């Protein structure tokens, strides 16, 4: 009898707790439908985890999902639809150009908008109050290379190589921009900065010039087909990846590189990469919880960093609303802007700059081990591969 009463009381309590609406805007159809699907599933898992903890301030989260078709037009319609549904907090979306017009609508309506898959730098330069992103920016990778990878190896002589495509050139230029103070103080030296021509078969001249420059570390910001050829031909030329630390960009997945270049040329080569869920589980307990729940429901975890950032947007809201004890987007936005670490999410500590950018965006240094597998770089384990 007592249990029945308790059950009734609990039922009454849960019925009394009105659900808090959180909007999800993503490309469920269109060219990026796969990313949208992964992001939605990840967000749903995050919502389940939060609800299992008793919801936000005792109120369960109810997700309102709108498709934006991966187009700017679809973005504005989805945003209007979410605003019309009375949503005060929105997670979304993938693609900077889709995000731009929708985030303006959210800003006008005072809806707190946490972005998960838009990396355009100037998105956060618009002076918005309600705009945040859990992902990094286009220049986060370059920043990670300069502020983490270079000191890690104590490198003095730096080589940067790109292939003149918009992406690779952008990363290379950002590396120079972040490295400028170090260069001015004479702490490092830029011994090689040049472009190769993508699509060629023989990169020996470029590699000879690289060898003559005698760098400590060599950052290639282009794509994997050329990266694989460079590693192969560099190895054949007698370059030693223990002496010259070879680091590729996130467009150089190790598994693909090994297929083209052969294992012996790639062992010890590294890449800079956004955090993939498979590597996060070793670092953060919440990531483990998230991946376990995800795999139990949907099968093997996706390898998209963006979908994980989407789930982290839900946790950001959870931590921030719990901390401020307020469902007022303005209060929550002020709190997030203060720069405090609101909590530890799936991708690490969640904190934001006054502009709404994610602070300390976690990038990862991955390395190809002797078996050709991709591993998180650990000096103790992999030091000998790169001559540390």
């Amino acid at each position: 009898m007592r249990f029945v009463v308790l059950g009734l009381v609990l039922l009454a309590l849960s019925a009394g707790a009105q659900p808090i609406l959180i909007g999800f805007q993503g490309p469920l159809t269109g060219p990026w439908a796969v990313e949208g699907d992964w992001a939605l599933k990840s967000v749903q898992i995050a919502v389940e985890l939060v609800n299992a903890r008793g919801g936000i301030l005792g109120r369960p989260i109810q997700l309102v999902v709108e498709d934006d078709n991966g187009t700017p037009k679809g973005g504005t319609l989805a945003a209007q639809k979410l605003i019309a549904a009375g949503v005060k907090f929105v997670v979304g979306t993938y693609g900077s150009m889709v995000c731009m017009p929708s985030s303006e609508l959210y800003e006008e309506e005072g809806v707190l908008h946490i972005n998960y898959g838009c990396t355009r730098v100037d998105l956060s330069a618009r002076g918005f109050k309600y705009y945040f992103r859990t992902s990094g920016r286009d220049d986060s990778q370059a920043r990670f290379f300069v502020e983490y990878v270079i000191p890690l190896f104590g490198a003095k002589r730096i080589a940067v190589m790109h292939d003149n495509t918009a992406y690779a050139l952008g990363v290379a230029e950002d590396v120079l921009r972040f490295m400028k103070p170090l260069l001015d103080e004479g702490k490092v030296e830029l011994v090689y900065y040049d472009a190769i021509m993508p699509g060629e078969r023989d990169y020996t001249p470029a590699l000879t010039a690289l060898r003559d420059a005698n760098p400590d570390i060599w950052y290639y910001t282009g794509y994997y087909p050329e990266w694989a050829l460079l590693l192969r031909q560099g190895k054949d030329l007698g370059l030693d990846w223990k002496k010259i630390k070879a680091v590729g960009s996130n467009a150089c997945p190790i598994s693909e590189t090994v297929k083209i270049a052969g294992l012996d040329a790639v062992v010890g080569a590294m890449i800079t990469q956004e955090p993939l869920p498979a590597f996060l589980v070793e670092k953060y307990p919440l990531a483990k919880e998230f991946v376990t729940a995800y795999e139990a429901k949907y099968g093997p975890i996706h390898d998209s960093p963006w979908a994980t950032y989407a789930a982290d947007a839900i946790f950001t809201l959870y931590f921030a609303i719990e901390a401020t004890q307020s469902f007022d987007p303005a209060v929550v936005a002020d709190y997030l802007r203060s720069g405090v670490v609101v909590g530890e999410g799936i991708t690490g500590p969640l904190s934001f700059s006054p502009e709404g950018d994610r602070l300390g965006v976690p990038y990862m240094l991955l390395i190809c081990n002797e078996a050709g597998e991709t591993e998180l770089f650990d000096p103790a384990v992999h030091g000998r591969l790169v001559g540390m």
Partner: protein
Amino acid sequence: MNPLKKWRELRTWAPLRLAFLALFLAFLVSFPFWGSRYWVDVGFYVGLYALLGLGLNVILGEVGLFNLGHAAFWAIGAYATAILNARFGLPTLALLPVSALVAAGCAWIISSPIIHLRGDYLCIVTIALGEIVRLVLINNPGGLTGGPNGVVGIDRPVFLGHVIRTPMDFYFLVWALVALCAFGLRQLQRSRIGRAWNYIREDEIAAEAMGVDVRALKLLAFVLGAALAGIAGNIFAAKMRMVSPDSFTFLESCLMFCIVLLGGMGSIPGTILGAALVVLFPEILRPVAQYRLLFFGLALAATMYFRPGGLWPRRRAVEFLREAKS
């Protein structure tokens, strides 16, 4: 009484038609005052696609030129506004005619060498044109188009000191232009040019034999259609406050093609109805989430199956003449 004159009177002054038009206008004007912001925005897109559809209707509906690259002219108009406003600071609304002119000029240059192509050959070339324009925009010629990132920071249009910003403002702007264009095109339909266009559509060789300047009239259709797309581009750029190549995909060209075919070739009210369906279907189908484009396709296929001539086909003068005689 001259049967043609009688038909004109019959058509123009039929009280039922007038009543219907008045009802439709009353609905259009009052809608933003009782519809939600979301539905007003949807109404805006109906107007925008009606504008694009009306432009393509001139080319495809009136003259029968298979143009599957109409999004290219839309893109050119939008980028003209974006570049001239964001880079050179010209006021957005003043760029409306400029966008139309730029798109029309580009259409004239682009379509001059291909205008003699017929049927599916023209279709293939226009598909290529649409893609080429999009790729050129991505490749960022002269650093003007901003590559895949597009152009951002377009000012809001200002009309007589009133800043156009809310969905309602844009709704009235676009529908005022639709009304203006629809009226102009209706007058054109009944002019010598309109009749010559239809003649070309029905039998090009006969038209040429009767002294119709086929090439010039086809070019005129292309230029006029592109100008309307350019106007739509200006409004789209102003509404989004940014343009990027992924707004102007082949799918958009296909949608415009659908609008004209769904509504009925050469029919102005049909085109507006077609635009309404193409915009409304995916919105109504939101509850089925990721399957909505599938259902959208099914709905389009079903419509074409049951109404192969379009939902609101243009009534031909001939039929009325026959009625008037008997």
